[in-house]
């Protein structure tokens, strides 16, 4: 299951990659080169395979990418009139409702009426949300080049870059962290996030070493944020920095320090779903506070899988099957690893069985759980148990599913956060 309808076919993704490459060559003055011609040749087939909507989208993307190389000094800024203001609101609403083609078209009409950096920033956000980090990075980088003082632009650029050119992003992150005092704290925190992602393929010893390198930098970063309350990026930098410190300490086994950092961030912003989820996961199984944190994160519509995963487990363990089913279904709509989705499918199957759903529905969920993660032995055994119960209906009232303990699911979540995406 994917969270939202995709903004393009796999072929469209190929076209996007080629267009970004072609525009880079054009920007470098190599638009008439053999290299550019080879990119065009490679694009011929994919372009022909696009449907009309995708083809138009690709063509307008190509047009928008020209703005990245346009000399900003030549862009005439007209005063924003009421029509333009109305259009801007429409564009933002279209983005909010994930009507990305319309949002992009409306932003195009605003060219010359909003500042070029703001235009590129908004275009970047659209493509980022549509899951095209390569394009988002082009626009965020452009915004950052126009206004190098805007740390949000720079951080967003680095984040997008890390998704499609991770090695380049890692090198950039190393440069930032090597001279952290020269960069905005928000950019430093983003650099730490990128380096944290390295741990997904690092040994335990390398991970510990990396955290020991990053912790003093992040603590220095926190001190800078606290010392300069007037910086525009401070709130985001503070939340991101304490979040990183919390995760580093959590993964080093220092839970109390981790909880302290997460709590410090939540004092500043009680609605930071990432911090709520992080503290909820860390404290899961120890009391009501964890559940309250996770429920708050879920109420906030977090796009992280953790609140839904842990709440689904909690509701299952407390026989709140309808709540469990709903949490599983919400969790399956956000980004998460196959292992996480396998757990959610398994628990959905159990909740459905307990709620008396048709056996085919339950079976489909169990099968999805095993398909997503062949190593999910509990899903396999619970499926067998379910099938056996169908043959002896009298046992259905005394179903005894095998379930992970709170400690086991917490451990699972911890490992997934290290090997998955940083909170």
């Amino acid at each position, binding site marked *: 299951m994917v969270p939202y309808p995709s903004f393009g076919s796999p072929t469209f993704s190929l076209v996007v990659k080629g*267009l970004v490459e*072609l*525009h880079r060559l*054009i920007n470098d003055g190599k*638009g*008439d080169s053999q290299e*550019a*011609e080879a990119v*065009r*040749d490679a*694009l*011929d087939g994919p*372009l*022909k395979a696009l449907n009309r909507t995708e083809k138009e989208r*690709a*063509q*307008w*993307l*190509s*047009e928008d990418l*020209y703005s990245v190389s346009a000399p900003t000094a030549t862009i005439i800024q007209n005063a924003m009139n009421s029509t333009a203001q109305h259009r801007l609101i429409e564009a933002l609403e279209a983005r909010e409702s994930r009507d990305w083609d319309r949002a992009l078209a409306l932003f195009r009409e605003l060219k010359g009426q909003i500042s070029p950096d703001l235009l590129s920033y908004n275009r970047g956000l659209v493509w980022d949300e549509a899951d095209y980090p390569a394009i988002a990075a082009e626009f965020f980088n452009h915004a950052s080049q126009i206004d190098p003082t805007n740390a949000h632009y720079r951080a967003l650029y680095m984040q997008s870059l890390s998704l499609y050119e991770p090695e380049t992003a890692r090198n950039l992150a190393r440069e930032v962290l090597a001279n952290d005092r020269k960069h905005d704290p928000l950019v430093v925190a983003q650099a730490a996030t990128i380096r944290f992602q390295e741990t997904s393929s690092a040994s335990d010893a390398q991970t510990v070493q990396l955290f020991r390198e990053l912790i003093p930098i992040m603590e220095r970063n926190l001190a800078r944020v606290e010392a300069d309350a007037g910086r525009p990026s401070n709130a985001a930098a503070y939340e991101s920095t304490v979040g990183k410190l919390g995760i580093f300490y959590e993964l080093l086994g220092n839970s109390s320090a981790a909880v302290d950092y997460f709590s410090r961030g939540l004092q500043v912003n009680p609605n930071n779903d990432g911090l709520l989820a992080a503290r909820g996961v860390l404290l899961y199984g120890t009391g009501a506070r964890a559940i309250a944190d996770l429920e708050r994160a879920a109420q906030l519509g977090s796009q992280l899988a953790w609140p839904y995963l842990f709440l689904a487990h909690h509701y299952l363990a407390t026989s709140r099957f309808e709540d469990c089913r709903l949490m599983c279904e919400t969790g399956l709509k956000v980004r998460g690893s196959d292992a996480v989705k396998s757990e959610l499918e398994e628990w959905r199957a159990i909740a459905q069985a307990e709620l008396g759903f048709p056996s085919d529905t339950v079976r489909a969920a169990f099968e999805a759980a095993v398909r997503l993660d062949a190593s999910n032995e509990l899903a396999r055994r619970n499926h067998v148990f379910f099938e056996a119960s169908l043959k002896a209906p009298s046992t259905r009232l005394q179903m005894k599913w095998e379930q992970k303990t709170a400690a086991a699911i917490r451990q699972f979540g911890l490992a997934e956060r290290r090997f998955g995406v940083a909170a």
Partner: protein
Amino acid sequence: MDNLPVVGTTSSSELGARPGIDITVDAAGSVVLDSSGMSVAPEWRVIDFTRIPRRLRHIVPGATGANNTSCFTMGAGPFQSGVIANGLELIPDQGPAPITHGVIAPAQVVPEAQFQTDLANTRNAWQIDEA
């Protein structure tokens, strides 16, 4: 630089057909009549935007083609199946209107070299059309 197309088979912008890409050549060296050939369009604005020279971006947004190439037109007849020059026929794509693509293919099985010569012989019939 005589405002006529460049004859060749190394680029899709040249007057010619690239073996293995635009046309299929059999073991005997003849062009296979499989409705493949040199790509053409009923008018230049409907060519893929990556093939339209960048200087025409004010007409076709997003155009990213090489500026050292041009858009050419040949004749003034309708874009429909039929012989268009000695040994050559136009085969528009199948499908609902409007048809935006077709190929110039050999009218009968010929050696690849003959097909390329037939295409090259049309060189003087092409003229730049970027209006």
